């Protein structure tokens, strides 16, 4: 689980496309299949063959050179995931409410939560003509569990019985031939899987993107990532097959006529690397048909008939964390008295002008949140049950902040007008933020200003911003200078807070926990929680608890923007990209 959360989304995604290279930015789609998800098949029949124009090519732009690792289990960044989404498909997909639903395969979980049965639809073909079978899925798990495996998806097979045994083999074959004890192939399209522990999120955590095992035949696991079969002539079972790769610049794909959901409307898709800074212009000029742009650029496109601007809520959120303790190597120790008083934390939340931040620095592309969860998740709590720290009346918020601080005993002021702590000692607050985009610095300064405006002697740590990796290094090691820090998390589709919020989580950066919280998180993964309604209820309660305790101030859930050529239809950005049902895309300007 830990690794699936791993991708801290460093930058505040809404604005940071320019700076973040491929590695850091995407939210881990591996366990959620978000990039490639194909929802229900219901209405596809008529659209694919019916009334929409057929043919034409669409150019999908990306703003960073891509690495070219065209295999789900090995790729690292969004750059490659977009291509994978076009050429590959997955067994399950994520529905709009982020629930995992059957797609190319059906699944069933036993009452005790320990057995998962996967039945792959028959007749699905790979681009090389082989049929997708249970063997492909089994092969994939064996690759990932193999000691030589070079990717980082281990946590998605870890729960399979026997996977750990394979991974810790001292002597082994370089090929993925070591069987996992818990995998039982019932027939060519059905697998019965034993997992170590029951959990409501087993299915969303489990690795279910099969590899073309025939295509990879004979390749040692260690060599897979760099093999020609992955990089030069990758094979998938998605709507488009790769015909030409220009490393780092372009991938050309054409329609795969035997696609299991019916052939795509388009003749092909060209994936090409373009300059992000020029984004909006490139779409206007028709050089690119689909491109994620910065919110700032979206403003230029308003009223432009040739371009559709499509918004979508990203699966991530930004926050400002308080340092309430430290990590002792094994667990959280809450020993930092500075923000011990919950009223101070709440006062800060009132003081910070989140609405203003979104409007000024993200051009409004973001939603103020009061819970550490993306607003699109089914687990996002009902706002009416939460305390609203950012009301429409800014003056009232500031007054409330002052009132809370006074109440907490921070009413005395020094000669410069800064508040003193209840013992009459200076109360200074170091705020740490990441560098990265042109608005990182003004935004951080503005937050400091917000605090200064309620008399808190806040300043940017060392008077500067920190580069992303350094920032997280310092935050993670609980650098003593840090009081407040602004971070962001990319989320997985499953809302389980484990990994970020438990007492035993190294990534619990605010270094906060409570008995209530621990209990609720456990409850959310209990057998009872196999019932979605119960689970929703548990997370609702957990969010209310966090909203009151406020170990971090949730800032906003960013909104992404795609600019799409007006002639290209059926494009629908979802979760983290616009590669969503690409076989339904069509052009209106073809003969």
């Amino acid at each position: 689980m830990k690794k699936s959360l791993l991708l801290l989304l460093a930058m505040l995604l809404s604005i940071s496309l320019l700076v973040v290279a491929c590695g850091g930015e995407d939210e881990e789609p591996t366990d959620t299949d978000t990039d490639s998800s194909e929802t229900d098949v219901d209405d596809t029949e008529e659209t694919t063959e019916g009334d929409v124009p057929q043919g034409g090519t669409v150019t999908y732009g990306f703003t960073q050179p891509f690495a070219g690792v065209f295999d789900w289990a090995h790729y690292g960044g969004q750059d490659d995931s977009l291509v994978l989404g076009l050429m590959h498909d997955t067994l399950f997909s994520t529905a709009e409410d982020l629930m995992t639903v059957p797609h190319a395969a059906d699944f069933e979980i036993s009452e005790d939560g320990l057995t998962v049965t996967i039945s792959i639809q028959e007749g699905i073909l790979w681009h090389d003509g082989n049929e997708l079978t249970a063997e492909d899925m089994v092969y994939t798990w064996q690759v990932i569990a193999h000691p030589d495996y070079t990717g980082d998806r281990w946590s998605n097979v870890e729960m399979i019985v026997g996977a750990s045994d394979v991974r810790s083999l001292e002597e082994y074959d370089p090929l993925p031939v070591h069987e996992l004890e818990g995998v039982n192939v019932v027939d060519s399209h059905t697998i019965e899987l034993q997992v170590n522990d029951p959990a409501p999120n087993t299915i969303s955590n489990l690795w279910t993107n099969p590899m073309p095992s025939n295509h990879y035949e004979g390749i040692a696991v260690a060599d897979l990532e760099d093999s020609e079969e992955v990089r030069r002539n990758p094979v998938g079972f998605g709507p488009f097959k790769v015909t030409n790769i220009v490393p780092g610049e372009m991938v050309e794909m054409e329609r795969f006529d035997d696609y299991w959901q019916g052939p795509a409307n388009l003749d092909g898709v060209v994936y090409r690397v373009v300059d992000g800074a020029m984004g909006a212009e490139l779409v206007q000029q028709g050089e690119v048909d689909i491109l994620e742009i910065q919110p700032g650029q979206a403003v230029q496109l308003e009223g432009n008939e040739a371009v559709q601007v499509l918004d979508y809520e990203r699966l991530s959120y930004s926050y400002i964390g308080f340092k309430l303790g430290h990590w002792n190597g094994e667990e959280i120790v809450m020993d930092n008295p500075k923000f011990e008083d919950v009223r101070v934390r709440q006062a800060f939340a009132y003081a910070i002008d989140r609405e203003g931040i979104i409007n000024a620095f993200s051009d409004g592309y973001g939603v103020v949140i009061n819970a550490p969860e993306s607003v699109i998740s089914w687990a996002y709590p009902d706002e009416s049950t939460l305390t609203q720290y950012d009301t429409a009346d800014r003056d009232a918020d500031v007054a409330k902040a002052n009132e809370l601080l006074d109440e907490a005993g921070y009413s005395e002021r020094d000669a410069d007008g800064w508040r003193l702590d209840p013992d009459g000692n200076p109360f200074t607050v170091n705020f740490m933020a990441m560098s990265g985009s042109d608005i990182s610095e003004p935004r951080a300064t503005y937050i400091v200003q917000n605090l200064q405006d309620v008399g808190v002697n806040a300043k940017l740590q060392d008077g500067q911003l920190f580069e992303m990796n350094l920032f997280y290094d310092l935050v993670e090691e609980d650098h003593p200078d840090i009081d407040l820090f602004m971070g962001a998390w990319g989320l997985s589709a499953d809302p389980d807070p484990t990994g970020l919020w438990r007492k035993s989580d190294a990534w619990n950066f605010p270094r906060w926990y409570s008995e209530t919280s621990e209990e609720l998180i456990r409850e959310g993964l209990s057998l009872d929680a196999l019932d979605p309604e119960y689970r929703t209820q548990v997370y609702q309660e957990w969010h209310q608890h966090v909203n009151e305790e406020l170990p971090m101030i949730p800032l906003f859930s960013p909104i992404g923007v795609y600019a799409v050529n007006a002639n290209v239809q059926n494009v629908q950005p979802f979760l983290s990209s616009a590669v969503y049902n690409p076989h339904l895309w069509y052009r209106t300007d073809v003969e």
Partner: protein
Amino acid sequence: METLDNQSTQELKKIAKKQSPWAIARRKLFQNKLAMISLAFLVIVTILSFLAPWITPFDPTRVDIMNRNVPPGGDFMLGTDVAGRDIWTLLLYGGRTSLTIGFVCMFLVVSFGTIIGSISGYYGGWVDAVLMRFTDFVMNFPFLVFVIVLASIFREAGIWALIIVISVLGWTGAARVVRSKTMSEKENEYVMAAISIGGSPFKVIRKHLLPNVMTTIIVQATLLLAVMIVAETALSFLGFGVPSGTPSWGNMMQEARQPHVIRSMWWIWVPPAMAITLTILSINFIGEGIKDAFNPKSAR
């Protein structure tokens, strides 16, 4: 032996001043219009920068989200930037940062280059060989590339780390110039004479060689001042220089890495661009003027 009385001493000194090589050079420099205009410009820019708090009512760091990207005119003479900061204010405070770093780096680089170069040139032999091999060695590192690598390693240390990194890598040219000038100057018999009257090596270098190498050093210093200002602004522009919250001309230019800023918000980047270019231009003209003034062959 009677000594000269005080008054005539003063008079003689005055005459001496007028006729000293320095005085001649100064006169020539004062007659060079371009250099004088440039000097005036540089002095004005420096003074304005350092008096910034008394000239502009705005805070150079305060973010004003209600007044972002305001075009020139109205309350904001040159408009505001993406953070709602007054461009004119940033220009003044930024000049302070950029000029200070430029001067400090120039001073360090010239001092270090002079020390290495004069020792190397004076002693010759193995001392020279060792020092020059070392200089060549440092010269082989592409300046900008290494400054960026080092600056990114020491980024936490702030402005001083930047200054030291630039200086540590920037002295080689000065050292070579000073060395070759020292060597040719050393050929003059007065150096031999200075040794023959019992001057210690340190004294010979300081009293005899350096004053005569000084013209070269001064010219080199003006050139380096320009180079150092460019280095700071370029590094800040790329994001490896002054911390982004600190106003500096390079940081102001950083916003021009967004094409839409280049295209439609010219008031954000044109002022710092002009400030940098005009400053460098005037420093170069002053350098040319000094070079010319020290050149005995030039008329004027």
